[in-house]
């Protein structure tokens, strides 16, 4: 039951309209950061208040919500956000990627390919990919307006000169439809190829920085690279020690105080589902 002390999905209607208008302009100008007036939410900024506000503006009573944090449904952060929307919007929730209509995420894109009925909402800490090159907003706006991304390429090339490869492994910058360079949020670069040509709607919310941006389905998204150093969506050179998957993004987990370690899928729902399928197969 919805807690009657709150408006549907917590935010007041005027705030939701403002966020909704920003989301639509974001979809109309893929990869461009639309300013919005971020609201205080009843949780700390580090918990993804930008994503929470976007989710609040998008949820309908009929939605089924999934919330993941680094691929896991059961972290404190994911559980709190899920409970928040169960209480304020009375929506159904799930851990199964395929059953969700709205997925809020921090730092991962699910392993199961998304579908046309789904919306993926990213929590974004720093939306401006050029910020570390140029602190002034007035200047980064100009650079985006002119598609002037030479400095970004120089930065990536310095990585190559120093490390023999591009060292950036999270929040790896992408260019959208040949125009805006966009920060995909701190997802591993392993996930970058899923940003482009995705059947789902992808929405990005940065609370502290007050920016919203979006990728419509089937949008052309290219990870920045060089002819002699093409982009590589790398992962640990292992298979999952729990489900055996050889094609998923893995977390390295220390299993005891002797320093033993194992590699497991970061997408816990994907891993658990595969283990259950394997068990069912073995039982037959």
């Amino acid at each position, binding site marked *: 039951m919805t807690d009657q002390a709150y408006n549907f999905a917590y935010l007041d*209607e005027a705030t*939701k309209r403002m966020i909704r208008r920003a989301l*639509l302009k974001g979809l109309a*100008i*893929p990869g461009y950061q639309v*300013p919005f007036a971020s609201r205080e939410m009843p949780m700390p900024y580090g918990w993804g208040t930008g994503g929470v506000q976007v989710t609040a503006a998008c949820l309908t009573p*009929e939605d089924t919500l999934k919330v993941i944090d680094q691929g896991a449904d059961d972290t404190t952060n994911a559980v709190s956000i899920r409970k928040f929307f169960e209480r304020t919007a009375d929506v159904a929730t799930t851990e199964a990627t395929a059953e969700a209509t709205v997925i809020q995420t921090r730092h991962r894109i699910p392993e199961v390919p998304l579908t046309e009925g789904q919306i993926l909402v990213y929590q974004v800490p720093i939306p401006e990919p050029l910020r570390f090159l140029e602190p002034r907003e007035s200047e980064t706006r100009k650079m985006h307006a002119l598609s002037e991304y030479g400095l970004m390429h120089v930065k990536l090339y310095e990585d190559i000169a120093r490390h023999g490869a591009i060292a950036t492994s999270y929040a790896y910058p992408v260019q959208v439809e040949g125009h805006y360079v966009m920060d995909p949020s701190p997802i591993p670069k392993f996930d970058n190829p899923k940003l482009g040509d995705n059947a789902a*709607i992808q929405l990005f919310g940065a609370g502290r920085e007050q920016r919203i941006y979006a990728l419509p389905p089937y949008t052309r998204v290219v990870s920045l690279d060089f002819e002699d150093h093409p982009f590589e969506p790398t992962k640990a050179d292992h298979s999952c020690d729990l489900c055996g998957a050889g094609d998923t993004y893995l977390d390295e987990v220390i299993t005891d105080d002797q320093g033993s370690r194992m590699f497991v899928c970061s997408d816990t729902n994907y891993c658990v589902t595969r283990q259950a399928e394997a068990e069912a197969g073995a039982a037959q």
Partner: protein
Amino acid sequence: MAHDTVLAAGFADPARDAARAFRLCLNAMARPGTLQDVAPIAAPAPLSAAAATVLLTLADSTTPLFIGTSHDTPEVRAWIAFHTGAPLVDRAQAVFAVGSWAALGPTEAFAQGTAEYPDRSTTLIVERSALTPANARLTGPGIQHAHELRLPDPAAFQANAALFPLGVDFYFTAGTQLAALPRTTKVEAL
């Protein structure tokens, strides 16, 4: 009678109905050319249910609105004032505009956004007698292969798309049907 339409219409359950209506607006803009069906709603003629739904969902006292002569009646003005509070303005100041294609006039008269803030551009709600049969083929972001839609003047949308990242964005409305065309969509006449 006119007074009744003004007061009675609107969303029955404002927060939840607006959320459902926004999902249709979002899906329309994310997948240009696809037809969305809004829930029937009473709005003063000639305002369609779909156009009324877009206004109820997105317009308010912070979004100046231009009404084309096709829709500029006392009843429509009263309905918009009562349900949205949007101030009525000329084309160049409008965040939203509603009317027939002819009444809205050349789209260059509306805000196109600026190089640094291309989002500061008008969204036009173009009232149509029908959104089919298609006369244009659409490609671009949001479209896997190609979508088709009936457009008033395909060449005007080619000119708008050529302004990218500037340009205006469109909703097309007919009865309870809704479709959208953002500035990124490439339009070919069929």
